[in-house]
């Protein structure tokens, strides 16, 4: 069983005991424990089930590479699946649970899959679920969805109560990894005077050196780490961060770092995670190395662990994974585990070493303590179900004939070490195969390049392929200095030193024993989480998969949440062997960020709740809010949709507002309308190019409605242009168009007609804009006094400056409703004041504010088009019968040439008409009119569609506009529109102007 040792554990505080729960069981831990070490201390080796076969899974590793120990954390609003127990720090009250099992971790019915594993080989899903096709939707897909995913998704009703944020940091050098290599590189770069950020993903500095190391600079490793930190902390140019992982390296020195601020203490004040968006001139990846598992039968049984992890738990946390540890290895390093176990007073029945190698100091040390070292040997199979009970030993050279059984409860395996090259590779850094170490290492001649074409990532220490401490320190110091040099600093000081223990070369062994039968190979796990075995990769190769990227997707090797940190090299070595190709030729799969999963909260940053999105408020926002508004989001704006009175439905409110505006007086907040000032000697010429109609002939004091098209000829915006003086125009755009039409104007001025003398300014938000609409509009303005608003003084399509009730205003006599209408622009700071004044004085005239829905109905009654309803980016002005707005006098305007293209002049384009339902009902928006027969795809032929449709309270019937094939030539003809429920509605083609066809009401 696994348990807490008497020895102290360097990272835990034995004076502070805390309690946590696992699957509802209350357990004890010490401050400093990871969830994995605490579970092991409580003899909880079984922590989960694998994805495909639901095999029992135990802790394998001690760090970010862990594939098995994935748990649910927290509950309710803070529930989170798939947290790695090895990187989760335990705090008092932490609640964890195992996942992917039913009904319980100990007894799981899904485990039946493992007995079916012969029928669930590589590519099973692709082979099984392809035929017969009709079964996909109702049988296969629901089945796969049911069994997909490891952890459970958080309840849809929960809301993450925590906050998150970004932090943009710019620095000379970013060093990722706070082991001795990272510390050394930081010393080198820091002493040179470069500005440095050094980050470490765990809570502790020094990495694994303190577990394995002997001495640095003649002192114990821990002491050296303390001194190094002291020196780094004393330097003002160095920022040190723990619990911050380098997650991804991107273009031009952009690096995402994931800082976990409160995960180790539980729910607290302040942000939970902070996503650092670092811009570094140089990035040093001192990310260390990861030990590789060995492939032998039963290597997935709980209790089979990485050799380094077994000693990490003992030395760092004072936790033994078991009493009897068999070490199995192809290198010297694993012998350190045997020594650590012996030092902890535990038993090591044997070290099984596939090599036949002369004794080196490490082997000597193990042997001298009476441990049996079995050379040239291998594990034939591991015995046990939910826990290792022993191993059967065989000769590595043979086919697995068992020579001997050894009882044990832990198997500590080591297949050598692979540098963590992920961050080096994210942005295009290339790798080279290291024959001696049997690993891929960064190729410094093919580093990721920055904007100036120079390399910006440097690997240091083990991440650079140096596996001995002395070499690591020397390399890291050199690389830290190199980073400093590249940012213009001058290297100083000398590298720390360590004596290396001589080691015998590693023997690359990718399968154990060498001639293992299918039966054994089908029990050799490569990917523990996704259940990919040696036999699966071999099958893929036999079926013709040669590319490692294809094999990965076919077998799902390395596609689990650990992204194959343990399995990839072993898997591709098996593939290479099977293809009879050298490993470097087979290559690796692509390393993609993030290094380990980061929270969705961190990705969203501050953008949640009230600040999820900018919400744009007009100057009268508070008034609307206080008067019972029902809001409509319009882009980022909030606009009043309607103002329901007590007991009134939205529909009733809209109908009331529509009728009142036609009969009495309505007030509309039109502030969101775009307002662009275009000024300069060439302003008229410029606007003649931008609008389809002529603007240069407009007289100062007058307004003109205009259309804007893109260079593709499509209608993009419309609005009223007012000429302020000879040189100055004020262009109104749609609410959604203010920013992009401003940008459109600047683009043409800056990039095409840069010699034209025109300036543009966006003054949209300088003004609140109030539409005063209805037969009593003039009366209310006159009651305020200050300027002459009579028909004579301010005629239709004119504008004037003046004051109203003492407030300076500019009034435009324009109408989007067909009523007598004044649009009043007022400085935003006084807009609400004017609105209140109009509302108060309007009482005697029956004033009511109206919202966007009433605005839409009023314009539809008049047959006025709306950008975004009648247009969708494929509609040209000709489609909408707006020929009158297309100047024939102008040689050119944006879109003119495009409108001459054959498709644009096709007589069969659908054209705008009005639609009047036979039964007076409202046609659903977007409904299509059916034609005769079917098209080439067997679909019903259509001959038109609805673009705007409303109930008109003034006409007391449904009205609509639509685009219809030859529409204007088919007046009175009846069309059939299909509803989504399969029924139909019949409508007659009519003139799109439904109300006041002569236009007398607006011009009084």
């Amino acid at each position, binding site marked *: 069983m696994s348990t807490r040792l008497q020895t102290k554990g360097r990272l835990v505080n034995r004076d502070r005991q805390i309690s946590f729960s696992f699957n509802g069981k209350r357990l004890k831990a010490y401050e400093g424990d990871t969830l994995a070490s605490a579970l092991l201390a409580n003899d909880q080796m079984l922590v989960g089930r694998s994805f495909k076969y639901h095999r029992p899974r135990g802790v394998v590793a001690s760090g970010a590479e862990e594939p098995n120990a994935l748990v649910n954390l927290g509950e309710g609003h803070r529930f989170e699946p798939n947290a790695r127990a090895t990187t989760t720090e335990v705090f008092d009250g932490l609640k964890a649970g195992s996942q992917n099992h039913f009904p319980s971790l100990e007894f799981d019915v899904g485990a039946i899959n493992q007995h079916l594993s012969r029928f669930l080989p590589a590519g099973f899903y692709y082979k099984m679920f392809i035929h017969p096709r009709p079964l996909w939707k109702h049988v296969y897909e629901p089945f796969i969805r049911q069994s997909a995913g490891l952890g459970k998704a958080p309840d849809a009703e929960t809301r993450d109560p925590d*906050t998150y*944020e*970004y*932090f*943009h*940091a*710019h620095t000379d050098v970013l060093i990722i990894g706070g082991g001795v290599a990272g510390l050394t590189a930081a010393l080198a770069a820091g002493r040179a005077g470069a500005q440095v950020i050094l980050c470490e993903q765990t809570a502790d500095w020094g990495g694994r050196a303190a577990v394995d190391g002997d001495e640095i600079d003649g002192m114990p490793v821990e002491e050296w780490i303390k001194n190094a930190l002291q020196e780094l902390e004393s330097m003002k140019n160095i*920022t040190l961060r723990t619990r911050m992982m380098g997650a991804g390296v991107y273009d031009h020195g952009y690096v995402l770092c994931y800082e976990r601020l409160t995960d180790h203490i539980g729910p*607290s*004040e*302040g*942000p939970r995670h*902070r996503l650092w*968006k670092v*811009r570094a001139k140089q990035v040093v990846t001192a990310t260390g190395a990861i030990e590789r598992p060995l492939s032998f039968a039963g290597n997935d049984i709980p209790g089979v662990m990485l050799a380094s992890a077994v000693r990490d738990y003992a030395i760092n946390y004072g936790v033994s994974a078991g009493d009897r540890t068999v070490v199995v290895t192809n290198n010297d390093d694993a012998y350190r585990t045997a020594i650590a176990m012996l030092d902890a007073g535990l038993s090591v029945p044997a070290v099984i070493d596939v090599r036949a190698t002369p004794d080196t100091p490490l082997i000597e040390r193990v042997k001298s303590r009476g441990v049996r070292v079995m050379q040239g040997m291998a594990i034939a199979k591991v015995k046990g179900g939910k826990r290792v009970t022993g191993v059967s030993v065989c000769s590595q050279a043979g086919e697995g004939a068992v020579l001997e059984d050894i009882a044990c409860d832990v198997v500590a395996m080591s297949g050598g070490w692979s540098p963590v090259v992920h961050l080096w590779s994210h942005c295009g850094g290339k790798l080279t195969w290291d024959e001696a170490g049997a690993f891929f290492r960064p190729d410094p001649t093919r580093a990721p390049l920055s904007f100036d074409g120079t390399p910006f990532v440097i690997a240091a220490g083990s991440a650079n392929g140096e596996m001995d401490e002395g070499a690591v320190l020397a390399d890291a110091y050199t690389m830290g200095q190199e980073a400093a040099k590249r940012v213009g600093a001058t290297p100083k000081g000398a590298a720390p030193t360590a004596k290396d223990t001589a080691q015998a070369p590693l023997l690359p062994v990718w399968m154990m024993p060498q001639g293992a039968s299918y039966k054994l190979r089908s029990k050799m796990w490569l990917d523990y989480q996704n259940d990919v075995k040696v036999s699966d990769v071999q099958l893929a190769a036999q079926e013709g998969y040669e590319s490692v990227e294809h094999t990965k997707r076919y077998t799902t090797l390395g596609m689990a949440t650990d992204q194959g940190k343990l399995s990839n090299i072993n898997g591709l070595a098996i593939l290479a062997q099977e293809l009879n190709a050298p490993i470097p030729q087979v290559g690796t799969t692509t390393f993609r960020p993030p290094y380990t999963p980061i929270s969705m909260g961190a990705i969203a*940053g*501050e*953008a949640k709740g*009230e*600040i999820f*999105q*900018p*919400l*744009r*408020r*007009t*100057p009268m926002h508070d008034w609307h809010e206080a008067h019972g508004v029902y809001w409509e989001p319009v882009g*980022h*704006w909030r606009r009043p949709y309607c103002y329901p009175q007590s007991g009134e439905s939205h529909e009733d409110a809209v109908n009331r507002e529509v009728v009142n505006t036609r009969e009495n007086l309505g007030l509309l907040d039109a502030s969101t309308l775009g307002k662009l*000032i275009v*000024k*300069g*000697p060439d302003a008229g010429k410029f606007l003649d190019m931008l609008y389809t109609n002529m603007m240069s002939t407009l007289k100062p004091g007058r307004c003109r409605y205009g259309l804007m098209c893109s260079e593709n000829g499509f209608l993009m915006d419309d609005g009223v242009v007012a000429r302020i003086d000879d040189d100055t125009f004020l262009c109104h755009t749609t609410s959604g168009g203010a920013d992009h039409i401003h940008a459109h104007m600047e683009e043409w001025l800056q990039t095409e007609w840069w010699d034209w*003398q025109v*300036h543009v*300014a966006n*003054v*949209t*938000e*300088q*003004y609140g804009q109030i539409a005063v609409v209805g037969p009593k509009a003039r009366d209310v303005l006159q009651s305020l006094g200050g300027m002459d608003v009579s028909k004579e003084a301010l005629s239709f399509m004119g504008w004037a400056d003046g004051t109203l009730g*003492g407030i300076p205003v500019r009034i435009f006599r324009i109408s989007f409703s067909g009523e007598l209408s004044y649009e009043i622009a007022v*400085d*935003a*700071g*006084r807009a*609400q*004041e004017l609105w209140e004044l109009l509302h108060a004085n309007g009482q005697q005239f029956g004033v009511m504010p109206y919202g966007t829905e009433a605005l839409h109905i009023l314009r539809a009654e008049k047959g006025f088009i709306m950008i975004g309803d009648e247009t969708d980016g494929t509609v040209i002005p000709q489609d909408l019968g707006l020929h009158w707005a297309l100047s024939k006098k102008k040689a050119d305007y944006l879109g003119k040439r495009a409108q001459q293209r054959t498709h644009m002049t096709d007589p069969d384009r659908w054209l705008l008409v009005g639609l009047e339902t036979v039964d007076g009902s409202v046609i659903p928006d977007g409904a299509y009119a059916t034609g005769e027969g079917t098209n080439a795809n067997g679909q019903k032929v259509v001959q038109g569609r609805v673009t705007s449709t409303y109930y008109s309270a003034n006409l007391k019937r449904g009205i609509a506009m639509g685009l219809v094939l030859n529409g204007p030539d088919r007046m009175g003809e009846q069309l059939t529109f299909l509803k989504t429920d399969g029924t139909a509605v019949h409508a007659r083609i009519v003139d799109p102007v439904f109300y006041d066809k002569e236009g007398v009401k607006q011009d009084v």
Partner: protein
Amino acid sequence: MSEAVSALKSAEYQGFARVSECGLRGMITVRGDLASRKLTKAVEDATGQQMPKPRMVNTDGPSGIAWMSPDELLVMVPYADVTGKLAQIDKALAGEFAMAVNVSDARAVFALNGNAREVLAKLSPADMRRSALPAGEMRRTRLAQVPAAFFADADDAFTVVCFRSVAHYVFDLLKAASDPSSDVGYF
């Protein structure tokens, strides 16, 4: 007669930095040839400040000139004076290819005191190190999802300018970013 009001009516928040809405500021966007002597004189006369170098801001209290782009300045004056100053600039620029428009009501202005660089670095991708953004330099950038501009004075207090419609959003952003439990300790 009533007073014109700013978007947030001088709202305040105290976190590890202090966020205060400054009320209305007189602001005039001037576009034209910044090398023109006539234009230079017009804006210098209106503010009592010198024409700034590219990206720089010259201010004294409510009056100042900020370089916004190769053909754009932001002229700052007391809000009450803006109509008069605009007329003065317009007159001085007569006959010149240039434009001056009042944008005072289109903006919201915040003062950020305390560790303002840290607050802004959470929201903007700009390099907030003193070496990269010294006192008196205007940085036009974005704060989270909206455009904004800011500059520091000699005491490292920042003036932040954004559009009026998003004043509420920007205030909430600055509040969240200066939450007392969220200081980073980088600057």
